[in-house]
């Protein structure tokens, strides 16, 4: 039986790319271009040529600034924050892309190693989500979980005097609601 070597991590590729390896740049591009392009297509309402320009601009900016990335493992949220900024600067913004940004923002726990742009982006997206929440209990749970300093679900349960299960289920349903909006769009587009 043959086994394939493991794919290099983002950190490894970032390190190599910063050292000038075009292969590493190519691998990073290949790894992330599809999802960045998908996001840009959402942001441009399916204008493919415009989306491709935005993808290109995203990677040009990213590769230029790559040496300043403090932690290669945090490449993913950083890259998405660049894509979001590139699309916003180009006036490419749709409700769907905004929902997608919000869903993406909840995917990664904040890290002290995050670049300021990625961190600010996440804070902005969480704030948008908090603005949508009317239920005070849900609002408190989401704020504690996703706003800095981030709390664990156990800490939230303790702080709000709630059963731990209530906190985890509430957060699960909250994230699921956001994804449900996106799946609804997908279903509408598929019909």
């Amino acid at each position: 039986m043959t086994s394939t070597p493991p794919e290099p991590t983002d950190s490894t590729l970032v390190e190599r790319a910063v050292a000038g390896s075009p292969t590493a740049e190519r691998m990073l591009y290949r790894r992330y271009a599809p999802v960045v392009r998908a996001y840009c297509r959402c942001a441009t309402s399916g204008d493919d040529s415009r989306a491709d320009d935005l993808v290109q601009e995203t990677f040009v900016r990213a590769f230029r600034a790559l040496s300043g990335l403090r932690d290669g493992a945090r490449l993913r949220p950083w890259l998405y924050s660049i894509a979001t900024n590139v699309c916003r600067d180009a006036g490419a913004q749709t409700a769907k892309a905004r929902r997608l940004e919000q869903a993406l923002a909840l995917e990664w726990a904040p890290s002290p190693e995050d670049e300021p742009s990625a961190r600010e982006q996440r804070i902005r997206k969480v704030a948008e989500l908090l603005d949508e929440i009317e239920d005070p209990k849900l609002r408190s749970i989401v704020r504690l979980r996703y706003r800095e300093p981030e709390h664990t679900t156990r800490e939230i349960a303790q702080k709000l005097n709630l059963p731990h299960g209530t906190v985890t289920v509430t957060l699960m349903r909250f994230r699921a609601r956001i994804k449900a909006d996106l799946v609804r769009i997908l279903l509408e587009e598929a019909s």
Partner: protein
Amino acid sequence: MSTPTSSLLHRLLAGEALSADERMVLAAKIESFDDETAAALDAVDVESLALALGGAQAEKADEAPGRPHPSTSPLTGGAGRPVSKRESHLTVGSPRAWGRAAAMGLAVAAFVALLTFIPRSEPSPDGAEGIKGPPAPVHVRLVARVGTRQNGVPVAGALLSSGAMVSSDTAVLFRYRLTAAAWGYLVAEGDGAPTLLYSTGRRRAGEHEVATDGQAMALFPVELGSSVNIVMLACSEPIDDDFDWALLASIDAPALARRNVSCARDGLLLRTEPPR
């Protein structure tokens, strides 16, 4: 554990066309938002969702007014709906057939077989040789579909969005749309260096099939690796024969720029399941 809802979600995100009934079931489950549905939704990977949304939207855009109208029997139809294709134009070989080609001394079955069958500068069968005038800015759109046979009848099956997972025996057919006349180059990058799969002479604006001698070309991505990036280039000028295609994946394509060749590009990533 896979539930009916998670199974439907998985298929939807994989770019598979759900039937109208299945879409209704899924929509109803999402509206009900019961615990099972919420858990299934929470388990959805956001990047998969992004890929599906980007792909689905691209498909919508293909059908929007103002896009180049398909010039031949189209692969475009309702989302995921198999559309009959001219039978004589479908060459969906089996992986074994490509294997035979490999056994004949070709290093890597899928794309080497394509290169063997397709001349690098294919004469324009649609009469594009006579196109004159300065080059117009061009945009290209690459469309990939699963090539299948249903009851013995060849059809272009489900649309493949970028990031789609295809099985080891899946053949993929390609079409591309040009907004202006251009030279076309289809390049794949799998586990090895980027390789030119196919090139054409100057083609008119419109929709074209990746085909030679009236035969649609089928690619088996598994032969190229577990993750294959396919890029269609539409160039204002022909690219020299000695061009190093391995440079293409570079984002700003400096090698092309230095040659004063302006190329639009569109691409997609196909992931393959390992052969059983």
